[in-house]
């Protein structure tokens, strides 16, 4: 099979912030993204917000996927804030896992692009990811 790619593979960060450590879902999503041709920097859970910002810079990350199950989504707005302050506001952030319906708005208002709950399909996630990466690249080309 030809591995010619028109553009270099997307660089994606899959991570978990906060206290929860269940990573069955994030591992599956990471392999979906890999199978779609993306390079996935995969971290263990319990990353601090500062660490995520640091990683995004060091690894030239173009898309961040945050997996959250317990109540860790409650500090996602803080993450969005930190990313903005570090000049990474153009990097798309998607959240996957369990976010109670009543708490979706807070995340979307903070800048999260999309929240994927149980029932989200592999196709949805990949399509969203590719689109966000394309958007980030276009924005960066325009400003360089």
């Amino acid at each position: 099979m030809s591995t010619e790619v028109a553009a270099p593979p997307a660089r994606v960060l899959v991570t978990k912030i906060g206290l929860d450590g269940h990573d069955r879902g994030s591992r599956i999503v990471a392999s979906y993204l890999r199978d779609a041709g993306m390079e996935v920097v995969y971290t263990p859970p319990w990353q601090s917000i500062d660490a995520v910002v640091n990683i995004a810079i060091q690894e030239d990350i173009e898309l961040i996927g945050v997996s959250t199950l317990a109540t860790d989504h409650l500090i996602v707005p803080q993450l969005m804030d930190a990313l903005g302050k570090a000049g990474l506001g153009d990097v798309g952030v998607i959240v996957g896992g369990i976010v109670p319906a009543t708490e979706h708005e807070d995340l979307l208002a903070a800048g999260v692009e999309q929240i994927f709950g149980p029932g989200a399909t592999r196709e949805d996630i990949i399509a969203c990811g590719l689109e966000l990466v394309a958007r980030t690249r276009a924005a960066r080309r325009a400003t360089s």
Partner: protein
Amino acid sequence: MKPDPVQLPLPGFDQELTDWSERYAAQIGEDRVVRNRSGIEVRPLYTPGDWSDGRYLEDLGFPGKPPYTRGIYPTMHRGRRWSQRQLIGLGTPADYNARVKSTLDAGGNAISLIPCNSVFRGVDCDEVPTALLGTCGTVVNTITHMDGCLDGVALAETSTALNDPSPFTLFAFLLGTARRRGVPWSQISGTSNQSDYISHFVANHMFFRLSLPGSRRLLLDHIEFCQQQVPKWNPLSVVGQHMQQAGATPAEAMGFTICSAIQYADDCIARGMAADAVLRKFTFFFDISISFFEEVAKFRAGRRIWARIVRDRFGVADARAMRFKFHAQTSGADLTRQQPLNNITRVTVQALAGIFGGLQSMHTDGYDEAITCPTTESARIAIATQNILREEASLCDVIDPLGGSYYVETLTDQMEVEIEQVIARVDAAGGMYRAVETGLVQGMIGESALAFQQEVELGQRKVVGVNCFAERADDLEPAPYRPNSQAIQRLVADFVDYKKQRNGKVAQKAIDGLARSAIAEDENIFAAVVQAAEAGATHGEIVACLRAELGFGNPLITP
């Protein structure tokens, strides 16, 4: 060793079987191949041609006697109902205490404590964002907190399961509380529910706190300590739940769990402990999925395999040491966020499988498990489910009622074969410890998890409300539980105060002693943990000290 189907002396049987097969084939049209979660093919009909009771005494036996297939006690639930041991964990110690009391009133008869995620991570409440405290478990960082949790609970009469991994600080706080109340440690009963560090390393990374070698040593110290000072306590519970929830098939979960148990037994024996004394105190903890018959067969096969392993691999003759005692929890992984009230039905079926599987103790999930830790209402329904099954469906009247079913006995045999294959693979890899270090176990679980997910996404595996019958339901999404933020802030403030008020020198001296015990090879680290707890050290301080000496646990997460 599987017997061939017995040659039946029943005249006309073969002819009737053929006749039915033809009528079946004619009517069914295109039949589908059905496999259960462990990959075993499930056929439409089972008959004496598949299993008959020629080997009843060897393979089944009677309850209370090896191989224990039908149950580990002669009377089983008819003599003593299973313990209704609901997991409780939320908010502050006062919140926990209130919930314990209402659960005991509603029919629970044993206690389980699940601490806050911050406690699992090994830190104190003043080290994490307050928004994350108490949302999924109770904050317990000191003896005083534990005392508050168990206020009004008679320690000598109540069995307590503590969901606290190595270094078992919660248990140290419990012992300190007992001493404060004048209750002798010889009367304290319960279980260190999360002492199985291998399962955490493999499948529940959240609970993994200390390096693998450090955890290994600490478990042995803990077991020895309990043998000498808290004899009614079960220091080891080997956990199959984490692996099954991480995606292992039921056969894999049982196989890996038994392999872990073998590893722990080997470690204890290498330490110089007597095999039969050690094995007598082994308990297990399993997930119960909604694959009803498979779960029943899994537990029956597990009992039979374990009895034989204890007898043949460890050479122990004491029949009590061959008993496969277990607590089980209905599987949260089968519960859905969509149409949450459906989960009441799911939990009922799972509970049924556990009861028919012969468990000793059970926790039933709340219907809102996918969203939140249970509300008082969903917790009440969860217990009521067990009460109804026991009192109204009269499930305690007959021991192993599914025994003798052609299907269930055949499936038990087949599950036994699958489980033995898993055990053989781990043995070939050099034992469980080696198998997890090389990532073999994690790889197998990961593959099963991915396969399952794909089946759901392709619609091959039906989940009501998710990929079928998924029209919008009227069920309102349950509001997530959030602890009272003022109560949490007060808790943190009180905790900071506590550290100022206590005798800092005494606490520090005990922590230094703890560090020394970790370096010395012949000291009991857990005894030092208890001393530190009683000297006023906090959970975070104890864990930090041991991490510095024994290494931080980095579970071998393989992508």
